[in-house]
Structure formats: structure tokens, C-alpha cells
């Protein structure tokens, strides 16, 4: 980890190595490791083993730490009854599409606003940033009515992935992040590219984008997380059972399925992302660390 090279932080290294400081540090470290494990891993353990318990064991007081007669029925039933494979596929499909749409359209826009500065650019930027303070909830009804019947073309986007992808492009935070980053790329580089006769697209592609990998990573992570976490919008625009996302699907089934089966479904639904996260955690962490706005 970069920090272990000894950059000075709030408390100096030297202080932590000496006498009382050392004891405090190690006690604190142990407490934190134990506490965090209990707080963040404990509930997950509870969930995984809970779904292995029978209905009667779940209701037992005090609760058992380890299932007495583990049964996998709940997991098997959840997988089949909820059609989890399809739900997971949908969610990933929407997430990947969202990343592509945001990366391409928002990067292009931020680049234009930062470097090309066309006429009225500032007005457009202002209008975009003004939406930062507008929570999605305020727009949910008119947005829904719009998606049902797009103006001019009169297309109904319900149950179509575009209903998730396109509204996500209208993300002022992305524009803000990207533009800020592009602003920090020195003008000289652009000028140099200009000398070489590179057009704006070439400049974007071969100079700006390679430098922007960290911020593009951040935008992608945010996009995936957003689709993954969003609930009401997909619930509304994906009314069919075949087009639902994982969260919506599980919630929809919770009203008519036994509790243990729902918990089992929740566990299964969490597995793929947790695995992806564990594999790519270094990239995700360093992406977020390197690329996030400098405070």
C-alpha cells in the first residue's frame, strides 16, 4: 500500500512506535479488526447460515450460532422459483450498458465543455449542474410518463433497457467529475496535439483518454454501483417478470414467498458481485483512490 512508505498523517509514525503510543496503536488495531469483522462480516455470516436453518430453528430463542440440521432446500428453491439466473443477467446487462452509455456520451460532453468550449457551453453546463440538486424522486412521475411515451418519436420504453441506460446519461455529477479532471490537463498538451494536426476526436482519443483512465474508472464504478443499487426506477420501468433486476425481483417475490427462501435468494444474488469485487478490489480501490476529486 502506498501509505506504508511513511507519509506523515494525523499522528506521526514515530509516536506510534514508542512506548505508550505503541500499546495504544496495537490495542486500537486489534479492536478495529475485531469490531469491523463483526460489524461487516458478521451479518453476512448470519445471512448465509440463516438460510440453511429450518423455519422452526429461525424462530428459536436464543438464536443458534450454527444451523443444527443444515438444509440446502431454501437455496435450491430460491434459485428456481425466482429465476435468479435471469435476474442476475438482467442486472449485469443493464449495468454494462449504463457504463458504456455514460462513458461515451458523458466523456464526449465533458471534453467539449472543458476543451472545445463551444458557444453557450457555459449555459449548457449550468443547466446540467443545476440538476445536481434535483433528486431523482422529484422527477420520478414526469420521467415515468416521458418514458412511457417519448415526446416526438412516441416510443414506449417500458421493459426496454434503454429506459435505464438513457436517463443515466443525464448525470450531472459525472459531467462535473470529468470536466474537472479534463480542466486539469494542461492546455499545452492540447496545443501540442494541434500542432501535430490532430483533430478534436484524435486529441480526445490519444491524449486525453489515456491520461483519464483513473477518472473513467471512477465513473464506471459509480455507474455499476448505481444500477446495482437503484430500486424504484427499475421497479417502475421494468414491470415484467423477465426484465426485472435482482433487487426488484427479490422484493417482488418477498410478498409471497417464505422468509428463508427470500434470504437464500438474497445470499445467492450477492455472491457474483462479491466475487467480482474481491477479484478486482485492487483496481476498484486504487481507481476510487486515485481518481476521486481532490479535496
Amino acid at each position: 500500500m502506498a501509505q506504508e512508505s511513511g507519509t506523515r498523517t494525523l499522528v506521526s509514525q514515530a509516536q506510534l512506535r514508542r512506548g505508550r503510543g505503541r500499546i495504544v496503536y496495537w490495542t486500537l488495531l486489534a479492536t478495529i479488526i475485531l469490531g469491523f469483522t463483526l460489524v461487516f462480516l458478521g451479518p453476512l455470516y448470519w445471512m448465509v447460515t440463516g438460510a440453511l436453518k429450518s423455519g422452526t430453528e429461525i424462530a428459536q430463542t436464543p438464536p443458534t450460532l450454527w444451523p443444527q440440521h443444515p438444509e440446502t432446500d431454501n437455496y435450491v428453491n430460491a434459485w428456481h422459483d425466482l429465476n435468479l439466473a435471469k435476474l442476475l443477467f438482467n442486472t449485469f446487462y443493464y449495468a454494462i450498458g449504463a457504463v458504456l452509455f455514460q462513458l461515451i456520451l458523458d466523456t464526449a460532453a465533458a471534453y467539449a465543455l472543458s476543451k472545445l468550449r463551444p458557444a453557450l457551453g457555459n449555459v449548457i453546463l449550468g443547466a446540467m449542474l443545476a440538476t445536481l440538486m434535483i433528486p431523482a424522486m422529484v422527477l420520478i412521475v414526469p420521467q415515468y410518463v416521458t418514458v412511457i411515451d417519448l415526446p416526438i418519436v412516441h416510443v414506449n420504453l417500458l421493459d426496454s433497457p434503454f429506459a435505464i441506460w438513457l436517463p443515466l446519461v443525464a448525470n450531472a455529477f459525472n459531467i462535473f467529475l470529468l470536466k474537472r479532471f479534463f480542466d486539469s490537463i494542461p492546455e499545452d498538451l492540447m496545443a501540442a496535439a494541434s500542432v501535430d494536426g490532430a483533430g478534436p476526436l484524435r486529441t480526445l482519443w490519444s491524449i486525453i483518454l489515456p491520461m483519464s483512465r483513473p477518472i473513467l474508472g471512477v465513473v464506471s464504478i459509480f455507474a455499476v454501483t448505481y444500477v446495482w443499487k437503484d430500486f424504484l426506477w427499475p421497479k417502475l420501468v421494468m414491470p415484467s417478470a423477465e426484465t426485472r433486476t435482482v433487487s426488484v425481483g427479490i422484493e417482488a417475490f418477498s410478498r409471497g414467498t417464505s422468509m428463508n427462501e427470500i434470504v437464500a435468494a438474497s445470499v445467492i444474488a450477492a455472491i457474483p458481485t462479491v466475487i467480482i469485487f474481491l477479484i478486482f478490489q485492487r483496481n476498484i480501490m486504487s481507481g476510487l483512490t486515485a481518481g476521486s476529486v481532490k479535496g
Partner: protein
Amino acid sequence: MSAPQYRKAVAYALAAGLGLSLAACSTKSDDAATDANGKVTITVDCQPVGTEKDLLANWNADVAAFQKDNPDITIKSVSVGQQCNNPPDFTARLAGGTMTDVFYGYMTDLSQVLDSGQAMDITEYANKDTVPTFDSIDPALTKVFTDGGKLYALPVKNYSMGLVYNKTLFQKAGLDPASPPKTWAEVRTAAKKIADADKGAAGYAEYSAGNTGGWHFTAELYSQGGQVLSEDGKKADFNNALGKQVLQNLKDMRYGDNSMGTRQLLQWGDLLTNAAAGKVGMFVGAPDATQAIVSQFKGKYEDWAVAPLPGQDGLAKSTLGGGEGYFFKKGLTPEQVKAGLKWVAYEKLTVGKGQFDYPRAKPQNYPVGVPQPLLFAPGTEAQKAEVELRKANANVDPAIYALFENQQLPIKGEPTNAQAIYAVLDSAMSGVLTNPNANIDELLKTAETKVNQLLAAGS
């Protein structure tokens, strides 16, 4: 290419023009309704979901058999969840126009369906030719789906509420399953005994969330002889001795006897999950709740029985009734409407077929003998045939339902604006079930003010 598809193509091209190649596919296929050979295709919703294995298999077999009898008709089934009409999803489908050609709805949904402008007038198509048993259908039911002299849906189910109880828990508590409680006082005593005999069980369980609490408050108020709204429908009419009695009964059981379990804020699925796990002694419900417990929540039908709704002294003064039907989407061709009617008639209104195929249901994990759905008017041929077939194939002791069937209580429908009022009444129900210090007068007064505000605002 039809117009919508053309538009869709334009939209896709637009998106692609923005620099993306898209491998997206829309899930909505607007198949041509009638092809050159005169074949008709209709989509129908409320296909049972995967968890209801027998019901789903039955449905699919029915579709196959129906298509064999009617080679010109193709039925495409769509499953929309366990509760075919979960209000928000139903509204979303109506608003988006994404419901199927023939779609399921509650009796209370007519005005909403009309509001959405999506309902088809089926008056001229619904008759003995398309629906052989049409003249036997209880006229009171078709009337519910009629507006301005026009019929908009075909009724497929009609229920009224009773007291659903678990015979096994009754026996365990030393109660006689053959003589269930007839008054709320008896319900309280029985609930106490059940809770004492089985610590993990609720003697009596009640809803208090997701608008189902208000729904049951209404049923229990009817049992007291009360009504939710005044005759003219302009004022709340439950802040009185009758409404208080409803909440007092619940409070006594919840906190006086502690016989309703710790977990509250239950809604439909929560209560039935607990019931299926054998943790609920009694609850207010329609006889078909026992079918849901068995087919969806994996309970055992041998455990369950239904009695008439109890009242304060003697049986209930009246009970809550409701039902379901199939609507038709505006813009269908006459052939499609006829095909749809034929299918609904086959699946839901033919004795010996579909939902009335008792010989098939008998060996399945499905109770036969439940005196519902009361679709046919008493005395008609269809009604007699249905009763006979049901009795002949009953797999539960008919005595269990005899009580319910022989004591037909007067049925009252749901109030206008039912969902909005239920949402308000949920609050009173959750108050009395989760707050030991709840003040019933306060709760009712607040709810009354709220309902009156609602009515005054004309929502």
C-alpha cells in the same frame, strides 16, 4: 412493419447514431393479432408462478387442451407475480399500457381501468355463444363490472370473508375443530388457549401493513354491523362504538392476552407464510386463503378449515365480499375479444374444466370442497352441476365448510376509494398492534379526520 415497430427502429437508429452498436432487443413483441390463415393470438395474464407447481401445470395443460379444441386460437400466457394484481404494479401496467390483451383485475379496479382509458366494452361479445354459462353467472357480479350499461369484464371469482383456522393447533390446545368460535369473545378465548399450548404460535393473527390492515378492519367492522363510510359516501363512519369494539378486541388479544405473537406489521404474504409454517391459529380470510397457503406457501390443507365470520354477539352481522375478473384491452379486434372470452369461459367458467376441474385437483395438494368461487346464481344449471361435482370430489371433510356454507352471511362490498382509505386505516391497526399504550379513541379520531380530508379533497 407496424407503426410502433417503425418508431422503435427510428429510436434505435438514433441511439446507434450516437456512436453505439446495440445488441439490444425489446421484450415487447407486438405480433400481428390475426395472421393470413385467420389464426388469432391473444395474451393473457395471471398465469400461476413457478412456486405453484400444480397450478402452473394445470394452467399449461388447459392452454394446450383449449388450443387443441380451438386450432384457430393461440394463447400466450404471462405471469405477473403471485398476487396477480399487486396495486402498484397493476397501476404501472395500466399507465404504461403494458397489460396483456386479456388482463386480470379486482372488482374495485373498474373505475381505475376506465380512468386509464384502457378498457374495452365487451357488452356485444359476451353472450351464450362465447361464454356458454353466461346466463348462469350471478347477475350481481356482472353488475359490478358494468358502468353506464356497458360490461367491461367477465367475473371469474367471488369471495366473502370468514374465519380461517388451523385444526391441528385447535386440537393441540384442546379445542374442538368442529365448533370454531362464533363470537369475538370466543375467538379471544381460543386464541389464548392456542398461544398457551404452542409458545411459538399466534392464536390469532392480523394484518397491519400494505393496505391489508385497513382491508381487515373493514371486514371486522362489517362483522360488528358497522360501515366504513356513511350511506352517501361523503363521511367516515367508523369512529363510533362499533369501530372501537374492533380495535378493542385486537388490543385485548395483543396486549391483554399476548396471544397474537410478537411479529406485527404483517401483510398478505407475511401472514400466510406464518400460517403455512403452522404458526397461526386463526385469521380472518376468504376460504381461498387456504388454497394460497397450500399451493404457494407450502402448507398442508389438512390443517385448515373455514368458519363464518364471528360477530360481537353471535355470528357477524355482515361480511366483506369482493372478487376478480378479466378485463379486455382497448383496441382488440372482435376476433380477439371472442377468443379471449372463449378462453376465460373455458378456464374459469366451465364446470369440470379449468378452475372447476375438481377430479384433477382432488389428488393434488389442493383443497377441493371449498365453497367458492360463488360465480353462478343459485338455482341455475351451472350452479347445481358445480356443487355436485365439488361434493363428489371433495378431498376435505365437507363438514368443515358446512358451517361457512350453510350460514351465508349478508355480503357487503368494499367502500369507494378503497385503497386510499385502507392506507389510512392501516395506521389505526398498526397502532393498536404495536403500541401497548395506544389510545383507541385517538387512533380512530385521527383516522376519521384523515378519511374525511381525503373525501373532501375528492381524490
